[in-house]
């Protein structure tokens, strides 16, 4: 463990994250503000379409904040996996010419996404205050839920970034999976809109669906379905956590097995 947090690794990690941030909004007039503006603008569009026209959110208190929170969490997951996926190949110049721990590259793009998430959560907080959302004591669970999402995304990122070195199709496939995942996760529509209980159960086995619902439940409103309500006892609600753990371990092992040959395969 000592070697992973050595002074050199920390210095390298902080420089890589810094570089990521500097380069990302390079040359745009609003710069960092785009990190906040992007999810807000997406939120406005979805809000107008789904809340005002389609009236999906009836019956859920604070639906706009509820919607924005879901979008922010999903965006984090999407951004982190997509950015990490291309990170090893994108840093090919470094990998082919210099010996640095390979995982640092994936880790640094995950940190960039994490920083973005932090900024977005501040926006959520502001919205919650404006909407007079009562703060529940269950909000204390939120950090744990965020950690779950992060670990899930990290496992996928490790796997995807290593596989992308060999198979460039992964980029397109992942894009499609993320599109499908966005609609298969109750982000835009309340879970209660799905009347078929079996389908509800199936949807909630997805760790992202479970995490987003839990996050909303703990922080915004108790009037939303979570996995332990839907399954009503039993051990099934552990399945998403098992999936997260398996993804993380699988991702780590695969990345480790491939890391030595990145330099020659890129």
């Amino acid at each position, binding site marked *: 463990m000592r070697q992973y947090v050595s*002074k*050199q690794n*920390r*210095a*390298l990690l*902080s*420089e*890589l994250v*810094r*570089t990521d941030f*500097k*380069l990302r909004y*390079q040359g745009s007039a609003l710069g960092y503000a785009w990190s906040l503006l992007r999810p807000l603008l997406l939120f406005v569009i979805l809000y107008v379409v789904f809340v005002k026209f389609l009236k999906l959110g009836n019956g859920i208190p604070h639906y706009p904040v509820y919607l924005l929170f879901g979008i922010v969490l999903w965006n984090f997951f999407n951004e982190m996996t997509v950015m990490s996926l291309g990170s090893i190949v994108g840093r090919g*110049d*470094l*990998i*082919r*010419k*210099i*010996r*640095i721990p390979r995982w640092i590259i994936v880790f640094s793009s995950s940190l960039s996404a994490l920083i973005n998430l932090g900024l977005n959560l501040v926006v959520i907080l502001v919205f919650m205050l404006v909407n007079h959302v009562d703060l529940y004591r269950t909000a204390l669970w939120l950090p744990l839920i965020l950690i779950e999402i992060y670990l899930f995304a990290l496992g996928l990122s490790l796997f995807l970034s290593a596989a992308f070195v*060999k*198979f*460039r*199709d*992964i980029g397109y*496939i992942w894009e499609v999976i993320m599109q499908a995942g966005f609609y298969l996760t109750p982000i835009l529509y309340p879970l209660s809109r799905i009347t078929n209980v079996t389908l509800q159960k199936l949807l909630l086995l997805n760790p992202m669906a479970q995490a987003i619902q839990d996050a909303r439940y703990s922080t915004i409103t108790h009037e939303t379905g979570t996995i332990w309500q839907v399954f009503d006892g039993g051990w099934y609600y552990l399945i998403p956590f098992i999936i997260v753990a398996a993804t993380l371990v699988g991702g780590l092992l695969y990345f480790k097995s491939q890391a*030595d*040959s990145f*330099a*020659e395969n890129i």
Partner: protein
Amino acid sequence: MDNETAIKVDHVSKTFKLPHEKNNSIKGVVVNFYKRKKTFETQQVLKDVSFEINKGEFFGIVGRNGSGKSTLLKMIAGIYAPSEGNIHVNGKITPFIELGVGFSPELTGRENVFLNGALLGFNRKEMAAMYEDIVAFAEIEKFMDQKLKNYSSGMQVRLAFSIAIRARSSILLLDEVLAVGDEAFQRKCFNYFETLKRNKKTVIIVTHDMSAVERFCSRAMFIEDGEIKLIGKPNTVAAAYSRSNDENYKIAKVEKIVEEVPQETYGLTITTKNDRGISTNKFTSNDLMTVSLAWDNPEVNNASVTIIRQSGECMFGTGTYQDKFEFSLHDKVDYEVALNLQEGEYYLQVGLGREGQVKPVVLINNGPSFVVNRDKSDSRWDGFTKLKHEWKQ
């Protein structure tokens, strides 16, 4: 490994898989799996290389393009993993082999200094402390807040070099640094080398500049086709390298001239076999090799086989006529020879002759080639062939 050794390269081989068609799509994999066809070639870049470098040595590696020297350096740096064998490094080694790795054209000079410093393992505080010195040494104070893409290539190299020399490692790897920069920069490089030598750092340098090898290196190594050809004094190695360049040039010329001779082939086939009769082109020194010749013209009544080293020297050549061997069959003959040869690559020259004709009627100038590896049970010796010898007292 004792304490005096800085780097030990122990029987290292490196093989690359070269896809015929870059196969990085899933469809390609599925289709190929289905067809069960290999769509890659393996290329052995380094073949069983072993050597040691002592602490404080200035070690030069020379060789032609594609001889495997950069691959070797990358493996020492830990960028590539060896396919076989081990590399032991005793001490802190610089992680990079080229100048300016990781420079980002969209960042300013200042930002790049910090990024590059991080790649060398320095944090911001340490970099801030030496920032002034780095900039002064590179002589580009005025440009530090400009984006790197607006720098001239000379400025980029100067900046990269002045960061790189800050590395606090005991072993340094340098690949072709001398090829870039103007004379003033080269002088700076040379001064830096002198400093390194004085400070007893271990330096491994890959270069084509023989004068630099002779001037700085305490020992040098000549690699050809992924094998060590020579390790020794810098001037010997430099001379061997220069000579091999000339020789390769000469052979290329000679081959063009020889082409006048016979056009006939008589369906001649040449096969090299080992002592178990299995067709192969890999041998070990002292192995028995059989060259099987077969043809389809009954008028042939003599044959000759010559073994030539890839660098052009004739090792040994003889024929049935000289050896007074009478043909009883007129469509094939076997030639058995003990390969008392130095390790290396060789090829065969084969001729067929007819009664009453001085010149061969069939002459294959560039026959099959084969490799002779070192017999590991045997001690090392110098020269082309192992003569029968004995020590007496």
